[in-house]
């Protein structure tokens, strides 16, 4: 039943939150398959359970029904195959950039000379090596985000989960960081699933945009994004005519009324 063609598969995911005031159905009947190297983004009205879905994929949250498979293996808790990037960079102020980057390895007790070398390699490749002994407060917002991504990449996950990972940045920085992070993810050949409320951001970065309905979140529609570009980047994607077409279509799907 489970084919190995997909790196990530969600089967009938359903989630209900319990509280004293009652039961809140957050997600219902989510089925999704993601191929290796694909960039999928999930959009939906606020409170539709987007972030809940990421928490479930990461293994931090157990769904009430259904199951998650990574490379055909059922997820039962946090997995080394999955890297999670949260809204803010959450670099620890009391650690240097190098110490921050090694956090994941430290927790997984995998700080080996090879792993450290890989960390140095990543820092060098993405222009943070000179800042390895600096503290997060000495870095710009974009550099901090890059450091956070490297912290995730060092543990060598196959799948990256980005939970509104750019929402803490101001608009201009955000556009630049989009480009930055996108390039790194593609270069390292990672599969990515990004949750965002920003339609433009999701179109500019993703190969596929998934629209969720209002609570309880179900998959409303799927949009394959194809840009007529030789070398696609989030910034260049925003300039092609297809962009507006996709934008209008997804905006309609979201059906937002104020």
């Amino acid at each position, binding site marked *: 039943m489970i084919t190995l063609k997909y790196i990530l598969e969600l089967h009938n995911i359903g989630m209900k939150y319990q509280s004293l005031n009652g039961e809140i159905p957050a997600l219902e009947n989510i089925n999704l398959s993601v191929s290796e190297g694909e960039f999928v983004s999930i959009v939906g009205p606020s409170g539709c359970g987007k972030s809940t879905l990421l928490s479930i994929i*990461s293994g*931090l949250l157990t769904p009430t029904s259904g199951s998650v498979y990574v490379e055909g293996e059922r997820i039962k*808790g*946090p*997995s*080394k195959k*999955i*890297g*999670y990037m*949260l*809204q*803010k960079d*959450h670099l*620890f*102020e*009391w650690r240097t950039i190098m110490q921050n980057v090694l*956090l*994941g390895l*430290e*927790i*997984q007790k995998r700080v080996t000379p090879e792993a450290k070398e890989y960390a140095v390699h990543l820092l060098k490749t993405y222009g943070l090596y000179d800042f390895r002994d600096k*503290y*997060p*407060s000495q870095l710009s917002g974009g550099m901090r985000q890059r450091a956070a991504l490297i912290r995730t990449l060092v*543990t060598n996950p196959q799948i990256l989960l980005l939970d509104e990972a750019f929402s803490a940045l101001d608009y201009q920085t955000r556009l630049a960081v989009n480009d930055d992070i996108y390039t790194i993810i593609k270069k390292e050949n990672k599969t990515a699933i990004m949750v965002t409320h920003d339609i433009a951001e999701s179109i500019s970065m993703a190969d596929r945009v998934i629209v969720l309905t209002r609570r309880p979140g179900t998959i409303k529609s799927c949009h394959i994004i194809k840009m007529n570009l030789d070398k696609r980047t989030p910034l260049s994607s925003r300039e092609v005519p297809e962009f507006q077409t996709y934008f209008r279509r997804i905006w309609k799907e979201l059906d937002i009324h104020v």
Partner: protein
Amino acid sequence: MFKFYKSNNNLTNDSKTEQISKERAEFLRHVHRQTIMIKFTQIFILIMVFGLWEILAKLKIIDPFITSQPSRIINTIINLYKEGVLFRHIFITCIETIIGFTLGTILGTLVAIILWWSEFISKVSEPYLVVLNSLPKIALGPVFIVWIGAGPAAIIAMTLAISLIVTILEVLNGFMAIDKDKAKLVRAFGGTKLQVMAKVILPASLPTIINALKVNVGLSWVGVIVGEFLVSKAGLGYLIVYGGQVFKLDLVMTSVLILSVAAALMYQGVVYLEKLLVKRYEV
């Protein structure tokens, strides 16, 4: 600041010197004058108070037998020193205080860790903490003396009684105020609860814990002096009580003065420690 500005102006090679505008020079001069005025007034008040005290006592306008006077305080200090007991009293009180606030901070943090760890224990203990927090801890003094015996241990128990509950509540609040996503990050890497504690909660709470230490310095002085009032054979609190009982106000005033200097120095020490440890946390 003034010196810096002046030397800068005197420099002839202007390749390195930044030209200071007239407005800035005026501003710096103003700030400098302000600082000097504040320091001057502070010292002036101190001299005035002691001077007036001395003069009024000399002129018998106030009775030095009841109010003591600065020259008699100096004599008392010299006498205490000659008897060889001055530093013993100061040392004993300081040591009791240091043990008190260190122990209070460490134990308080440990209990806060337990309460953070187990929501059940935390909820169960909540009403007890509320009652203990509102209880005037000095009421427990006699209990400690009977249980622990009249000695330094009872005095330290007194300081703990005063500082412990406040520390627990403050540090626990600090733990709770840490961004939940920081803990989520560690758990997403597969971290255990112990790792969340060690990698996030404790290091992120260092400023809170140091702050608790600062509060505890003050509380420990209260605890130690109260404790020495109740039971003791030595220490500044003992000197104050003894001096009061035999109507030696010189001794009382001397002890109070030494006490205020020691307390201020100890507080400054903790502030210095804070600067050393917490500088990374200021974003």
